[in-house]
């Protein structure tokens, strides 16, 4: 099965006069960890925003399992199976850890407005299942003991894991992680790396945006290097490490 899970074809995105993404093209195989790296301002987060429909590309298209998604809205893209985390954890701070994950299950649950208002038996059953599934997921992420705490009262490392747990709750196929280890210490970073590998084992495809080269080189199957919104390198970690263009972009000349 050679189908690419995600393809970008000539994506261009402008902010006013500034070109944030410039003729970007790449493709991602399923069940791989692909890291997007590049100096600050290269357009990495912009790319994630464009894939998830937060920004609309000015030209070009994204294909998810050969289906055009460039004009879809964020919630539709999430329903298709693409979930993400954010550079600064965007948790629901006035909900508990458990509730945050339960929200993540929204796209795969069905109780609608009237069922909820009237508290019908079908809804009650689904609520029980949702709660149980959420607890199981928290267990996988090692967050079950903290299920009842408010989301903004756990450590930064736990917040990151929670955000990923929430993203996993909706049964995605493709996960976009935006700098998950920024601000974490060495131990926490290693734990995160292990977690990402376990997600890959569970069948996820992961696009990782990161600056931490140790982590990136350690777990990635492929790298894509961005600079000023264009792709300047692509390949296996060992190849990229030696690519002169990439080195130059990072160190400047």
């Amino acid at each position, binding site marked *: 099965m050679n189908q690419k899970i995600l393809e970008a074809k000539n994506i261009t995105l402008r902010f006013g006069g500034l070109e944030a993404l410039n003729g970007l093209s790449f493709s991602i195989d399923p069940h791989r960890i692909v890291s997007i790296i590049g100096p600050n301002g290269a357009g990495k987060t912009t790319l994630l925003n464009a894939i*998830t429909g937060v920004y609309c590309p000015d030209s070009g298209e994204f294909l998810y399992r050969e289906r055009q998604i460039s004009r879809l809205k*964020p*919630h539709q893209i999430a329903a298709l199976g693409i*979930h993400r985390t954010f550079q600064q954890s965007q948790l629901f701070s006035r909900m*508990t850890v458990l509730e945050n994950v339960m929200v993540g299950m*929204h796209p795969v*649950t069905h109780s609608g407005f009237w*069922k*909820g208002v009237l508290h019908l038996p079908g809804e009650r059953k689904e609520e029980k299942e*949702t709660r149980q599934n959420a607890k199981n997921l928290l267990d996988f992420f090692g967050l079950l003991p903290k299920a009842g705490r408010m989301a903004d009262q756990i450590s930064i490392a736990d917040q990151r894991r929670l955000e990923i747990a929430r993203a996993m709750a909706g049964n995605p196929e493709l996960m976009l992680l935006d700098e998950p280890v920024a601000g974490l210490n060495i131990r926490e970073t290693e734990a995160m790396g292990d977690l990402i590998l376990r997600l890959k084992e569970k069948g996820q495809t992961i696009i990782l945006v990161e600056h931490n080269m140790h982590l990136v080189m350690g777990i990635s199957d492929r790298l894509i290097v961005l600079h000023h919104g264009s792709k300047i390198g692509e390949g296996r970690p060992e190849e990229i490490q030696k690519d002169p263009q990439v080195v130059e972009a990072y160190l400047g000349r």
Partner: protein
Amino acid sequence: MGKKNKIYLLIFAAIIFALPAFLRNNYHLMVLNVAALNILVVVGLNLLMGYAGQISLGHAAFFGLGAYISAVLTTTYGFPIWPTILLAMVITGMVAFAIGIPTLKLEGHYLVMATLGFNVIVYIVMIQLEPVTGGPSGFSGIPRLQAAGFVFDSDRKIYFLLWAVSIGSLLLSLNLIHSRVGRAMAALSQNEIAARCAGIDTERYKVKIFVLSAVLASLAGSLYAHYLTFISPGTFSFFYSLQVVTMVLVGGMGSLWGSLFGALLLTLLPEALHAVKEYNVLLYGLILMVALVFFPHGLFPGIAAVLGRGKISGSPDSEKPLALNKGT
């Protein structure tokens, strides 16, 4: 979680239904009846403000639409009472839908302005369309509510009906808040981008909540018309829209019990202020300012904290109401 709230609601209902036995004065009953109707409006508005993060300054218009549609159709054209109430709710819902769809798409508080404009237009039409609405002097002769031969022709009789409807709306609101949709709405109000990327169709929910709040206001308006048998445009001005928004704020946005408390307080307050005659408007304004300046998250959470209570508000396991905006 939801069960605790339901028990409190039951206790509250018991108190409410027992009260008339102790109240001989019909005036007191009337004030409580109006409070029940205000609660109906405020429940919907609280969902809109606390969960959709939107403000409406035009709920008086929806309240008025319910009242006038019911009044005119039943009195002038002899329509049956209860189906007309339903019809008024449908019409009001459609109007709210028409207003909500274009304005809720945009970032920024355009719904506020649109509802404001809408309120004034409806108010002016009520006054000017005299042959239909009776103009500034009002519309009288509205038939009383009746069901199975029983006519609700006194404050006492209608008290139980109005409070049953009101408490019913509180119960349904509680159900909604603790459901999947309620969670989605809470997420929407706390972090819209994260909610959308998690698969929640925020636009659709915002419109839904807005329509729901308008429909509840319409129901309240229809009941109001059949209760007082006389309505006039003055009741449905912009000022009433401000009053109901204030009830939500004073109680604590997003907090169901807070809204209840706010509605009760601000319905009883003007009555109490009647005593001071020409100072009543000034006092009302001052009390409002003081409450908002020193208790921005509502009087109710403040008092609840003092009484040592835990989490009893309507929002999921939290007692702090939801911030609408981070400020400039």
